[in-house]
């Protein structure tokens, strides 16, 4: 069995599972945020109206909560949702609630790794499609809707069809100025936005071993954009060190068998990859950044769980250092712990000296919620994960998806720019 099959077999008490088997898997961790939390609360209310008694959760210590989509409170309804979430965590005894403006807080997927909320070998589900992100730690991580999360909160398990696995092998280390974001955009361009549908996308090879943990998280994060159920990478020493730095050493790793089966394998030569951009209105609509050098921009957005981790900010700062932005540029670190590290390293000063705005952690404009949404006809280059019509604001705005290096280089010139072309 491969790593995903072995995790799902262990979680369902079976010695072997195969693709297409339907299982009920025991869940190790579950997450809700300020959108899915109130959604789950609404499901609870609906169930109570049918006469069901809901007094306690299956395991409050396995549940954690983030506030990220509409914080800082975008309006009265958003503020009320956060109040509702607080009442919920109090009522059901959930202690791990990362409250905006109280110690650590940030985007849920970023907290999942920054705070080592999820560990290798675990089954992790969250009320958000980018829950896949955390699979980079060697866990089975999948997004669910409100009814399913409510079911997990009360029963501790959920059904899954065991997915086929597609294996993506990266040979060699990524060249300078090419990031994991370029690789995953290339992959989505190759297989399409339903190329991973219902499947697991696993990454491996020497290029992945060379890659940092944060860069790996960019790959698994955007498996969602290929429709995948989950993304996963086998844990190695880099993962162990990353987790140990965050106080987590006690877990049971799972690795695929030597004869593990994959539905299909794709190979990529790192040396052949270029900075890539996905044009509106789909992450599969890719081309090399250099072909878009005539596209004029109104804004650069460096934010989200995909593109505002510490290394993403370091990459952007490398380009912005000593230069001035030509278009509105917004930098929103994905968690306050990352914001603090960026400050300590002098990155925030670099951004501000360049003329960019540095804002608080939030999903914000990535999902068109607030904090910098786009007007009609505005054109944005963004380190986020989706560019569907209206995703970041007006239905007739346009978003180009790119790495933090490309976004920063484009911020300097006001046009889409390959970072290798910045003099």
């Amino acid at each position, binding site marked *: 069995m491969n790593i995903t099959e072995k995790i799902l077999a262990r979680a369902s008490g079976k010695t072997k599972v195969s693709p297409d088997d*339907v299982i*009920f898997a025991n869940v190790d961790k579950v997450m809700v945020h300020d*959108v*899915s939390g*109130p*959604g789950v*609360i*609404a*499901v609870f209310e609906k*169930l109570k109206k049918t006469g*069901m008694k809901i007094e306690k959760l299956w395991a409050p210590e396995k549940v954690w909560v983030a506030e990220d*989509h*509409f914080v800082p409170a*975008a*309006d009265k*309804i*958003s503020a009320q*949702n956060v109040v509702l979430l607080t009442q919920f965590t109090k009522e059901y005894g959930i202690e791990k609630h990362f409250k905006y403006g109280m110690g650590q807080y940030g985007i849920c997927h970023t907290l999942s790794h920054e705070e080592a909320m999820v560990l290798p070998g675990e089954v992790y589900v969250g*009320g*958000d*499609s980018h*829950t896949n992100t955390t699979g980079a730690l060697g866990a089975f991580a999948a*997004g*669910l*809707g*409100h*009814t*399913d999360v*409510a*079911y997990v909160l009360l029963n501790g398990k959920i*059904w899954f*069809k065991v997915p086929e696995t597609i294996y993506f092998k990266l040979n060699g280390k990524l060249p300078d100025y090419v990031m994991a974001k370029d690789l995953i955009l290339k992959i989505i361009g190759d297989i399409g*936005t*339903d190329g991973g*549908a*219902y499947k697991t996308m696993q990454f491996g090879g020497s290029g992945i071993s060379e890659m940092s943990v944060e860069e790996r998280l960019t790959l698994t994060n955007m498996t969602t954009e290929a*429709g995948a*159920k989950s993304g996963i990478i086998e844990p190695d020493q880099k993962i162990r060190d990353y987790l140990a730095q965050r106080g987590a050493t006690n877990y049971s790793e799972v690795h695929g068998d030597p004869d593990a089966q994959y539905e299909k394998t794709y190979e990529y030569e790192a040396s052949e990859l270029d900075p890539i951009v996905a044009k509106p209105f*789909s992450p599969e609509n890719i081309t090399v950044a250099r072909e878009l050098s005539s596209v004029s921009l109104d804004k650069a957005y460096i934010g989200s769980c995909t593109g505002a981790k510490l290394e993403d900010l370091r990459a952007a700062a490398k380009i912005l250092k000593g230069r001035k932005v030509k278009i509105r540029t917004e930098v929103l670190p994905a968690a306050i712990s990352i914001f603090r590290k960026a400050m300590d390293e002098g990155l925030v000063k670099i951004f501000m000296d360049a003329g960019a705005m540095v804002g608080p952690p939030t999903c914000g404009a990535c*999902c*068109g*919620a*607030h904090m910098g949404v786009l007007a009609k006809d505005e054109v944005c280059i963004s380190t986020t994960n*989706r560019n*569907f*019509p*209206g*995703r970041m604001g007006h*239905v007739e705005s346009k978003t180009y998806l790119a790495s933090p290096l490309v976004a920063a280089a484009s911020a300097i010139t006001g046009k889409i720019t390959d970072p290798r072309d910045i003099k």
Partner: protein
Amino acid sequence: MKGSVIKYERDNIDTDVILPGPYLKIHDYNELAKHAMEGIDKDFHKKVKPGDFLVAGKNFGCGSSREHAPIALSYSGVKAVLALSFARIFYRNAVDGAFLLPIEIEENAYKDISEGDQLEIEISKNEIRNMTKNATYKIKPFPELIGKIIAAGGLFNYKP
């Protein structure tokens, strides 16, 4: 189950157009219904009638995990979405929450069915009858567990 068709001849109809991001903060199901399909069809809530079926191409419901998407369609009156294929979270949200039926159709049905056609769907026979065009199409049977959850009326009513 009888109803008439609203057709969007396109693939990858994502959750951002089914129920745009700014409305994610809303959890009043009837309020969500007013914004269904707003990303591609501002007039949807005016033209949709109780019992209608949506017809679309492949990968319907891709994108986010928001259960708001099937909720908004369901509370608009949509009883089933007939598509070439579905994104996974939309599919399981529709079934587990018992909001609507996600029915996989074949290419010939997708091409043949037009806006306004009157259909009758018979799940037990895995069949759609197009009463307007006097045609019959096969539908892909639901996988065993999905069929049982649908029959039970959602995941919470299903006893494993």
